[in-house]
Every structure is written in structure tokens, then in C-alpha cells.
């Protein structure tokens, strides 16, 4: 690597392999010694971002790889699971009665190769931190979801996707290698194309604890986006526009009004963008031209800790959706926008998940393949008819499927929506949608799931049997287990 900089100390360092995979006995000894025990944060009630189904676990915060290994060894009968910034909506990073490894203290960017566009970082590094460090060097993360407050480890574990899936695929496609702490206490350096990698990418942390990741980056000239916006009058119009124009842009997503009924069912606002080249900056924008790579995310105050339930009902959300649709330009091209407002508008409001009140909310995201448009139409119609108050619904056209055995994306259409969990009859309604999705050969996204019927899992994820087999061999005593794994029998 060309330039290797330790960003915590600011001193150039060589990257030493943090843990020698072959030095296992030493590691075991380290694990048993008291000085290496990780910070015990105490027993805590945890939920996912949706704030449903709280469970209790011992939270341990390892600061080094050795501490992580020690914590895994000491986890006890109810096992352990890694947790990042808690952005999975459901119970993926909870482990009732067991231990949860809070990975956010393992947050060092170990090395950056600014020539080749590679970064080596700990699993607990957030995409936000990566952007802060990498953007000024002219590099951007290859895939970002709707929030930059996810860790790199979580991004691999859920094999996240972004608005560029049709071009770039999922996050794990850009991973050059990763270090994985497995149940036997070994640390494996895992390369793409191996079964262990494919089980780990999208494996929801159940193959082991990801300790560090080497990631290939995307070069950018500015920290601004050049954005095209257009309105689609209904679902068919939207699908036609997405099909026709997606290949012209790196990023594409549609906000969809799921409360609109009748002729305007599925009306939407399409936003598509690309990283703005330096030449595209207007001459008048002196500040932008002077520091084209500055990263300046804005931040608004967070909602209060207590928000009454039912604030986001059909009326308020309907009103919001109407305004949101009307405020969007019918057609605009080349508008410059900050990265943060293009990719992560919700990150501007810390704890935005509180707006749903104590009852929390459910995210429902599914994908159906090309040729299954009829299913998508039917589902959208059903949601609209039922009047699910959802103001953050998005439709995206996925590209090629990703190699992870439990990776979510497949070529086709994905719809994501959030619904207050207190909506009556919601559980049964979503079960009905599941049936439609399964019948169409689709699947729901595990990182967002908090309610799937376990019987449907194998039909949704054909590689599930391989995953279970590998897990049984790698982790026979189920050291790595989560509430999600227990609930769905992963």
C-alpha cells in the first residue's frame, strides 16, 4: 500500500496483522487473563431501530481484538452476537439472556491507500467516520444505505445495499477481505469467493464476529451530487421510468406515496444522481470550488424522548405525502445537492425513530423478481387500500444478485416501507403480503425483519440449507446466536 496513515494517532504506521490466525493458543491464554477482559457495560435492555421486542443481554464493549476473543470465549450458554450502531430495524443485534458485543469501541481506521482507493478499518467504524476521513482524500464509500450511522461490520453482516445497487451491487461486493473471529477463537482472513465469505456476507453476524474489513473505495471529485428529479403519476409510470433511465445514473431511488389511491396509486418522486465532477460546480460557488471535497452534514434537533403514539396516523401522513409529492419539481436536472441530503436525509434528525412513539414501528422490505410486476402492483394496491400510514416508502430497481447466501437483493423490484407497530391487524396483514411475495419467488430483508413467519424463510432464501450446514460445522455449540436467529431458526 502506498500511504498508510493511522488516523487516530496521525502517525504513519505499517499495518501489522492484529491477530495471527495460527497463534491460537496464545490467544486463548490472552482470553483467560483478566487484564484483557473487555469493558463490561452492564446488563441492558436492547431493541433494534424499530424499538419493538425488547430483550435483555449483557453488553460487552471490546476495545481490542483480544478482548473480543475473550468476550466470545466467556459468553456462556446463551451465546453472543456482535452489535454495531443498532440500525437493524428488528432483533438482529439482540441476544436475550446472553451477551452482546458492542463493537463501536473497535473503531480505528487502520490504513488508507489513497492511490489505489483501499481502506483497512475495524468493524466498528461507522460509514459516517469513513466519509469524514475519506472524502477529503477524494474517496467515497462504495455503497451507502439510507443512513451513514451503520458500522462496516454491520454493513457486511446485513450485506446492505444502496441507491446504486443496479450499478454496484451490495456492500460485500466491494470487500477485498475481512478478518472473522469464529466460534473456536480463531481469526480467519476471509476472501471473497469462499464459502465462509458468502455465508458471512448477509449472514447477520451468525458466522462470527467481523473484526476488520478491507474495502475498495469509489473515487469522487467533489462532495456534491448532481441530482435529477422527476415525478411519476402512478406505479406503472414509475416502473417505466425506472426501467428506462436507471442505467444512466449511478444512484436511483423513488419515494412512493403509498396512501394515494385510485388513478394515482403508486405515484412517486424519482431522484437520481451522480457524484458531481469538479467542472460541474458553478463558477459562482466559490466556497464549493475552494473545498470541493468538504463533508458538511447538517443536523437538526432530535425529537423528544416521549412522543405520543398515533401522531403519525393516516391523516398526518396523508398530508405529508401530499405535500412531499407536490413540492417535488415535475422535472429538474443537474441540481447540486450535498451528499448528506441526497443519501441520508433522515440522519439530519437524530433519534428520528422516536416519532413513532413507545410502540415503535416495523419496516417491511421485500423484493420480487423482474416479471413479477403484477405482484408488486397488487401489494402496492393492497397497502394503499388498507391505508397504512407510511411516509418513508421507497421503490428501487435492483441489479444483479449478490453472492452472499443470505444476501437480500435479487434482480427486480424492492419496496420498503415503515408502519407504526401499533396499527391494528398489522401482523396478519403483513403475513398476507409475505404470501404474495413468496408466491412470486421473492423475499423479505432480514436486516429489517422483526415479524416474519419462520416457515417461509427457506422458500425465500434457497441457500438457507447451505448456510445452516456451514454454521453447524463452524459453530456446533451455537456460540453466535441472536434473537433473530432464534425466532427464525436460522
Amino acid at each position: 500500500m502506498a500511504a498508510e496513515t493511522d488516523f487516530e494517532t496521525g502517525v504513519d504506521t505499517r499495518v501489522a496483522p492484529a491477530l495471527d490466525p495460527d497463534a491460537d493458543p496464545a490467544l486463548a491464554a490472552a482470553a483467560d487473563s483478566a487484564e484483557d477482559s473487555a469493558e463490561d457495560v452492564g446488563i441492558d435492555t436492547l431493541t433494534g431501530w424499530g424499538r419493538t421486542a425488547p430483550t435483555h443481554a449483557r453488553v460487552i464493549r471490546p476495545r481490542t481484538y483480544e478482548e473480543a476473543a475473550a468476550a466470545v470465549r466467556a459468553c456462556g450458554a446463551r451465546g453472543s452476537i456482535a452489535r454495531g450502531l443498532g440500525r437493524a430495524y428488528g432483533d438482529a443485534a439482540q441476544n436475550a439472556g446472553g451477551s452482546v458485543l458492542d463493537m463501536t469501541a473497535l473503531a480505528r481506521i487502520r490504513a488508507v491507500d489513497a492511490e489505489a482507493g483501499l481502506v483497512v478499518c475495524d468493524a466498528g467504524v461507522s460509514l459516517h467516520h469513513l466519509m469524514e476521513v475519506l472524502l477529503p482524500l477524494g474517496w467515497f464509500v462504495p455503497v451507502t444505505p439510507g443512513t451513514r450511522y451503520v458500522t462496516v461490520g454491520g454493513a457486511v453482516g446485513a450485506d446492505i445495499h444502496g441507491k446504486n445497487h443496479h450499478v454496484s451491487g451490495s456492500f460485500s461486493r466491494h470487500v477485498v477481505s475481512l478478518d472473522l473471529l469464529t466460534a473456536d477463537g480463531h481469526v480467519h482472513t476471509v476472501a471473497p469467493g469462499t464459502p465462509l465469505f458468502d455465508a458471512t456476507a448477509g449472514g447477520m453476524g451468525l458466522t462470527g464476529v467481523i473484526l476488520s474489513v478491507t474495502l475498495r473505495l469509489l473515487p469522487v471529485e467533489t462532495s456534491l451530487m448532481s441530482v435529477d428529479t422527476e415525478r411519476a403519476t402512478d406505479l406503472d409510470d414509475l416502473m417505466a421510468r425506472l426501467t428506462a433511465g436507471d442505467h444512466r445514473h449511478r444512484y436511483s431511488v423513488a419515494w412512493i406515496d403509498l396512501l394515494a389511491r385510485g388513478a394515482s396509486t403508486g405515484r412517486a418522486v424519482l431522484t437520481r444522481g451522480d457524484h458531481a465532477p469538479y467542472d460541474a460546480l458553478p463558477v459562482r460557488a466559490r466556497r464549493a470550488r475552494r473545498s470541493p471535497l468538504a463533508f458538511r452534514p447538517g443536523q437538526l434537533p432530535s425529537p423528544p424522548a416521549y412522543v405520543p403514539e398515533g401522531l403519525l396516523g393516516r391523516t398526518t401522513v396523508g398530508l405529508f405525502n401530499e405535500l412531499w409529492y407536490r413540492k417535488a419539481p415535475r422535472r429538474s436536472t443537474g441540481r447540486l445537492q450535498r451528499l448528506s441530503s441526497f443519501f441520508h436525509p433522515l440522519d439530519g434528525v437524530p433519534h428520528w425513530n422516536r416519532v413513532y412513539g413507545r410502540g415503535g414501528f416495523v419496516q417491511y422490505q421485500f423484493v420480487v423478481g423482474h416479471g413479477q410486476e403484477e405482484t408488486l402492483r397488487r401489494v402496492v394496491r393492497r397497502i394503499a387500500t388498507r391505508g397504512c400510514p407510511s411516509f418513508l416508502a421507497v421503490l428501487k430497481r435492483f441489479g444483479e444478485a449478490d453472492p452472499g447466501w443470505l444476501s437480500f437483493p435479487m434482480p427486480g423490484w424492492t419496496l420498503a416501507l415503515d408502519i407504526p407497530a401499533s396499527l391494528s391487524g398489522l401482523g396478519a396483514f403483513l403475513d398476507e403480503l409475505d404470501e404474495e411475495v413468496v408466491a412470486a419467488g421473492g423475499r423479505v430483508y432480514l436486516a429489517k425483519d422483526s415479524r416474519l413467519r419462520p416457515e417461509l424463510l427457506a422458500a425465500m432464501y434457497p441457500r438457507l440449507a447451505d448456510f445452516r450446514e456451514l454454521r453447524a460445522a463452524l459453530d456446533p455449540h451455537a456460540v453466535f446466536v441472536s434473537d433473530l436467529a432464534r425466532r427464525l431458526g436460522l
Partner: protein
Amino acid sequence: MKDAFGAPQSLLVLGGTSEIGLATARRLIARRTRTVWLAGRPSPGLTAAAASLRALGADVHTVPFDALDTASHEERLGKIFAEGDVDTVLLAFGVLGDQVRDESDPLAAVRVAQTNYTGAVSAGLVCAQALQTQGHGSLVVLSSVAGERARRANFIYGSSKAGLDAFAQGLGDAMHGTGVHVMVVRPGFVRTRMTAGREEAPLATTPEAVATAIELGLRRRSETVWVPGALRVVMSALRHVPRPLFRRLPV
């Protein structure tokens, strides 16, 4: 594990022939419940109850359990928890007794008290401990409006439920912050075998209605559930009625 809507995958019913218990089991099986443990005294009734739930597609086990035999609770219930997580425990056993007879038969009265209160204290503590170890789960305790204020007509039963209710509330507070959720359910007059032939009280309800309320309470993680809901208001008024007047009320 429970899902986002509080629907459990496994259920333990203490008092496996309880009509409210079985109505709740049926309702939860229609959602996510696949494993049901029916704990009760071995009887044809218990076997039949298990068969009726099996017909709905659940994996049903019966466990010998006697509320009065508190010495055996830890071992009997411990075995169930050793088999796997129990997401929801429904403490549904209880006897109504015969007030008129029991007033002149203290031993029979004590049996009501021991079943409804002592037995529940023992089983409740054993289950709460096990739920705490697994880090999640709900303990649903079937109390009664009769425990809210003792009435002349059934104060033996009422006082046992009053004790149970107070115990369950305290247990709920003790479990707060441990991942374990304790929910006290206070139904009014429920039309069941237990109450057959008795004069119906106002706001009478059915086992199915109680089951619906329990399912909703699990979703909301409620601490207290009244069935029907109007009883909350009625009882809060009755609680403050002066004794001389309360005595004369035809309830």
C-alpha cells in the same frame, strides 16, 4: 422469540384445562405460537385440551402440575424451561370455591386460598426466575375484578385474587428492567364452566374476549388489562364507595 407484535412462539399455560387459557392458546396459535405446554393435573380433560390444540397445528405437550403441590413446582417447571425458551407463561389456574359452603368449611376455604394465592406465588416466582435467565418473556397472570374490592358474596375467592393481584404487581415491578414483562389481567364475570349456573354480573364477558385482550396486551406490553375495558372505570368508582353503601350494592 416474540415478534414485533408481541406474538409468542412458545406458550406455557399453567392450568392447562382453563377455558381462558385455552382460548388464549387458540388465539396465539393462529398467530405465531408453535409450541404449547399445558401444565395441569393429569386428566382426560387435559388430554382432550392438548388434542384440540394439536388439531390447530401446534406442537403440544402436557406436563403434570398441581398448584397445591408447591414443593414440586421448581422441578416440574424447570424441566420445561430446560427444553427451550418459553416466550409467554400464562398463569391461568384458579378455583372459585363455593362461598356459602366454604364459610363453614375452613379447610375448603384454605384450599381456595392455597390454589389461587400460594400456588400462584410459588409458580409465579419459579417462572419469573426462569424468564429472567432467558432474558425475555411475558408472565401473564389471570387475576380478577373480585380481587379489586372484596364483596360479601365471594370474599374468600376475592381475597385470594387480591393477594395474587398484589403479588403480581410487585413481581412486575421487580422484573422491570430485566427484559421480563409481567401483565396482570383482571376480567370481570367470565362465562365458563367455573361460573356455570351462577347469576351473571353486569359487563359479563367470554374466554375469547379475554384472549383477545391478552393478545392486545402482549402487543402493547401492558401492565394491567381489564376485560372488558369499561371495568377499569367501573371498578375505580366502586373502590371509593363507602362501606355501608358498598355492602348494600347488589353486585
